């Protein structure tokens, strides 16, 4: 049964994730008054990339990519998708956040292993950006954990019987959403990728199947990040309403990123530690004082 549920979670991640990425490209194009690619463009991209013969930069390059994809697949398996929970009771929020770091570390290691300084700079920026967004995000989430007295993600979801956490703790919700934009690497927080500056940063040496596998990893990562936000802040949902809420959050994030320019990396950190972090502390102060609606 667990095996079936894991497979269901992974397949959902694959199909819904790639579809929504295609839709996001379409929306982005329409905002910028272009026609845009079809919604299934990302499926074509992934399979085309996987079927080509590319170049590899040695075993650490390959191993890093395997570790990245493996880590993210493992993380995704622990994330509850509405009422579809692969490991009931074991979906601890800290496990998910830190297991996620395995994938990030694998990718960072593999890409720096390619020996291209553009990749190194991109990875250094990505880690710095992580220092920016993780802290306010985790503080806001900690307020939620403290309020509901559980750190299981599905427990947090089921605790929202009367109202959504987003309405109970609106400031925390906003902080988590801003941090989510940073996690997704969407503009204005796409500094680590920055195609015009550092040649797509970590991805600079990727080709063919390596590119394809990392595209899959990227899709799964997005799925994990948004799922956590939907589970924790947007009320109880079953599988279908979950996907609906997921789509709405994803489209809002896309629309925001479509109209904004890019931050410099130190501006990202400064911004996250000034605005969202102070807001997160305000929110946890409210939680401690019992001012929760």
């Amino acid at each position, binding site marked *: 049964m667990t095996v079936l549920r894991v497979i269901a979670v992974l397949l959902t991640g694959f199909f819904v994730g790639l579809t929504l990425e295609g839709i996001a490209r379409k929306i982005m194009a329409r905002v910028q008054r272009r026609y845009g690619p079809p919604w299934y463009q990302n499926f074509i991209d992934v399979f085309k990339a996987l079927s080509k013969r590319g170049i590899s930069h040695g075993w650490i390059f390959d191993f890093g990519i*395997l570790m990245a994809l493996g880590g993210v697949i493992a993380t995704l*398996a622990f994330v509850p998708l509405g009422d579809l929970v692969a490991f009931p009771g074991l979906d601890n929020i800290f496990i998910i956040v830190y*297991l996620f770091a395995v994938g990030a570390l694998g990718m960072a290691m593999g890409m720096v292993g390619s020996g291209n300084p553009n990749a190194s700079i991109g990875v250094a920026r990505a880690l710095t950006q992580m220092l920016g967004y993780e802290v306010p995000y985790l503080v806001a989430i900690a307020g939620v954990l403290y309020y509901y007295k559980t750190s299981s993600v599905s427990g947090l979801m089921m605790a929202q019987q009367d109202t959504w956490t987003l309405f109970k703790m609106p400031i925390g919700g906003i902080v988590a959403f801003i941090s989510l934009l940073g996690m997704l690497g969407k503009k204005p927080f796409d500094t680590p990728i920055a195609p015009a500056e550092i040649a797509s940063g970590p991805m600079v040496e990727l080709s063919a199947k390596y590119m394809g596998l990392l595209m899959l990893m990227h899709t799964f990562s997005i799925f994990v990040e948004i799922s956590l936000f939907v589970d924790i802040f947007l009320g109880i949902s079953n599988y279908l309403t979950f996907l609906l809420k997921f789509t709405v959050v994803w489209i809002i994030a896309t629309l925001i990123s479509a109209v904004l320019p890019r931050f410099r990396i130190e501006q990202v950190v400064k911004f996250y530690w000034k605005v969202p972090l102070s807001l997160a502390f305000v929110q946890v102060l409210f939680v401690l004082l019992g001012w929760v609606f």
Partner: protein
Amino acid sequence: MISLTNLILVFLIGSIVSYLLTKANKILGSIFNFLLISYALYVVWNIKVGHEEVLFRILRDVERTLKVTNLGKYFAIVSLIVISFVAFFIIEWIRKKDIKPAAFNSFLLLMVSGILGVFFSNDLLTLYIFWEIAVLGSFLIVPMGKKESKRAAIIYVVTSAIGSYMYLFATFSIYQRYGILSFEQVSQYLANDSSNLFKWFVILFIASAGIAKSGIFPLHTWLRITHGNAPDAFSAVLSGQLVKMGSYVLAIALSVFPTTQLFSSFYHGVPLLNYVLIWLGNISILIGTFMAIRQNDMKQLIAFSSIANGGYILVGLGIMNSIGYAGGLFHVFNHAIAAAMIFLSFAAVVYRTGTTKIDEMGGLIWRMPWTFVTYLVGIISLAGIPPTSGFISKWMIFSSLVSKGMFITLAITFIGSVGSFLYVFRPLAGVFLGQLKRKHSDVKEVPIIMLVPMLLFVILTILIGVYPKPVLDSIVSIENEVGIKAIEHSGTIIKTPLGQWNTLTVFTMFSVGFIIAAILYMIFPKGKKVDLTDQYTGGEYLYNYDLYHYATGFYRFIERLYDKHPSFEKLYEKLVSFFRYIGYFTYKLVYKTSPSGYVFWITIVILILFWVRW
């Protein structure tokens, strides 16, 4: 089975034997060291808790005994595991090193005898005596490293002395007030004492020895210079073991003298004194993390990370609830193992390349793959990423902080945790990944004897990460001993009031994810292997790939934000020059004019002090 007293004596005599043996043959002496330390590990492993021995008597009415407690046994086992692995490493390492091998081996055993005494002493004074023996042994080894090591040793011993004299002062105050010194009695008398001030004073002063030793702010400055300059293999013992002696004293100050019962609650069940200590831990985490991000010397980088991790241990112990205390103790184990394996891998790198500067190296993964694996697993554990053991303790500390509602401390521990991803990546990228430097093209992997302990550490870290039961069991018995509610666990499932997780499921799922990725990798067409010189360069023609490796100023863009940070090292240096000036002034004024007058006045002062009995 040999008694503890004899074991300590064996080590004291062994240090002389080891000196002679090493004089005769370097390798023989090192093997002797390794065997003796392993034997100590075997004895300590099998020793019964509650076993008592009379060692010696100095003061009247004070039974000076050695006593085996769960807490001491846990620390002793962790320490001896680290030291015995390092001793095995030394067998090969010492061959090439142009330090004084005989003295090195002899002092190592002297230090171990001190360590054994510290962890098994049953009263404050015996602990102090053995503490100084351990400090002496390590103090004599530190100057054998680089050029700057002599200064490092002095800074180390002075900082250590500040802490241990404060400790000694508290010890004598207790003896004067109660006439007893053993931990059990002291904690009883303290519980009945009405003076809050005295309790504060005693516990803070005893804790200050631990603060100095485990590199907690404001006595943290010695770690950078000492860890950075000590002999490479000895840095592993310094960071993996000696710093943990400080954590042991902190654990005693906070839990054996039950602070939560001695003082009233200040915030959600945490007394003010613990809160103050937790804040010292917080500051250490911040200093350690942000300074580690800046370092270009890999040993100093991990030295700063030791400060941050000492802070984690203090935060965990300071919370003093079931999960937080367990997290602190577990972190002692994790950091001991992780720091030791990281420093050993650095020692291996220095053994082959002769430098500790990150930007002078690069691409060593192509020459030293097993050293790289050790470093990789070490940093995964240090950064607290599952499936290694490092995550378990960090998770416990986070959980207890959330349930106590200590959000600022929580934010700081998150900064320390995410910041550790940053600083551990710097040597990974700079030393091991990227283009190999031309001058390092004939570097080889280190010999098998050095690899064995490193890889054993790797196995141990992953094993405890998947199956933490042995460590958790000893933590449960410690918590029962000091009267904290024990944590619940069943082998691989760890439970907290906030929820549970299963280490085995996480590991299995990670393996499954990896296998899925590997299958995908294998069914699609194989890539062509190209050299690291075959790169996208933006159309530029490159002739020197040494310069193409990005390692200098790796995080320059964030370092720039705190370039003008206040520095305690500079403040202490100002203090030092102030005292030097005063000394010089006195010398000029008194001694130069009349040495006999100088001696006369000194005698008068001492006599007055003696007469007042102050």
